[in-house]
């Protein structure tokens, strides 16, 4: 279970400041598939970063009672100057996993082949997504935080991700920020719509998507 109570986040730069959202309350039960909806800049990624513990809320609290992945997105999580293998080794070490197992899974799942010997900064965003997904699936989290990237990559990879994540691990919890309304309608059972700094929770995904579409 993940419980967020009274979360607010404000970014400050010099004298100007921007409040992203305030007073977000959210309970994610095991097995939930929560969609985060909102327009660009509404605060979906920010909320994912707070839940993942990457950034700290300005006020409020987050309690995590299950293992939560790092936010799987376009940026973050890797050291660009290190190779794919070195990043995998680093991640295996900090998550206390056996490198040989992680390595075998990553090679098989990511299909990056010789590219794994190249620095991650030379990867395209699709390749980064492959690596991030492969690593997080190899580690096995209770809850996956997915920031947009599920639709990145070619058809073949998308299908593979959906199979591994949405079918093989369908009892896991997922928090998914996405603009893809068909995907959200199909896979999510809850939605949180962030608009103008306020978050509204919907148990009926259909009506959440309708509201989002009309924004």
């Amino acid at each position, binding site marked *: 279970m993940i419980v967020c109570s009274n979360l607010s986040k404000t*970014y*400050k730069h010099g004298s100007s400041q921007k409040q992203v959202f305030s007073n977000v309350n959210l309970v994610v039960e095991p097995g939930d598939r929560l969609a985060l909806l909102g327009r660009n800049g509404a605060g979906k990624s920010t909320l994912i*970063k707070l839940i*993942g*513990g*990457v*950034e*700290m809320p*300005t006020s409020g609290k987050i309690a995590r009672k299950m293992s*939560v992945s*790092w*936010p799987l997105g376009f*940026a*973050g*999580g*890797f*050291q*660009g*100057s*290190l190779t794919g293998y*070195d990043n995998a*080794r*680093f*991640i295996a*070490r*900090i*998550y*206390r996993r056996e490198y040989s197992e992680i390595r075998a899974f990553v090679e098989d799942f990511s299909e990056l082949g010789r590219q794994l010997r190249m620095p991650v900064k030379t990867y395209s965003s699709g390749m980064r997504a492959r690596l991030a997904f492969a690593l997080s699936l190899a580690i096995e989290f209770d809850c996956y935080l997915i920031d947009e990237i599920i639709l990145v990559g070619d058809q073949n990879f998308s299908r593979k991700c959906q199979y591994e994540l949405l079918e093989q691990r369908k009892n896991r919890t997922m928090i998914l920020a996405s603009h893809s309304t068909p995907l959200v309608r199909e896979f999510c059972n809850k939605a949180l719509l962030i608009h103008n700094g306020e978050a509204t929770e919907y148990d009926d995904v259909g009506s959440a998507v309708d509201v989002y579409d009309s924004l």
Partner: protein
Amino acid sequence: MAHASLSKFRSGWITQVRVIHALMIRELTTRYGRDNIGFLWIMVEPLLFAGLVALIWHFMYGETKHGVGITAFIVTGYIPITLFRHGVARSVAIFTANSSILYHRQVKILDFIVVRLLIELLGGMMAFVFIAGVLMVFDQFPVPTDIGLTIAGWMIYAFFSFSICLIIAPLSEMSEVVEKFVPVTTYVMIPFSGLFTLAEWLTPTMREYLMWSPFVSGMEMLRKGIWGDQITAYYYPWYTISCSVVATMIGLVLCRRVRRTLAVD
């Protein structure tokens, strides 16, 4: 209750040790790669610094100064100052530079500073042993009389350097002005670090002023352990330790505050 918090502390401790270990390997491979001598490069920088400056002094000022071998004297001074200056220089903007790794929740910002300093510490020690060994062969370095005192001095010096890094790192994230003042400040403080002088060579008044610098006690202990009865050393280890503890406290509070507002992209 007490038992639960103890086991929580234990598992947190084990995690941090693993993270620091992983970060050290990461740092060494990104900075030095796996080619040629690999991670042994960590000792090359302090080695060259101490070695070349000592050589210059040797030819400029002769073999000895106040009865102390000048090469060995400069080497003992330069290795610690390199630790301090590199540690501080690398602490500037260290959190932003490593922010992509902060995606992994178990990595704490303090780990970055600890790793930096540990690497400088190891490099300095390796360089010291190497250079002292070589110089001893040429009879330019005395056999240390009290190695324990030398290590204690080095550790105190490192502790103080660490506590300053703990303050510089968060301050550099709060204000860009700090970044601009760091190089000149670490340069200007060189004479106050006890690098070029032993306290006994100074006039009593000057000595009194110099002893206010927390570096000097560490420096004097380190040298006393090497030259023993050949020199008179002045040191107040508890003064340096107290300064370090206070600076560490301030640094930890600042780090905590900065972490709350750190934007990670």
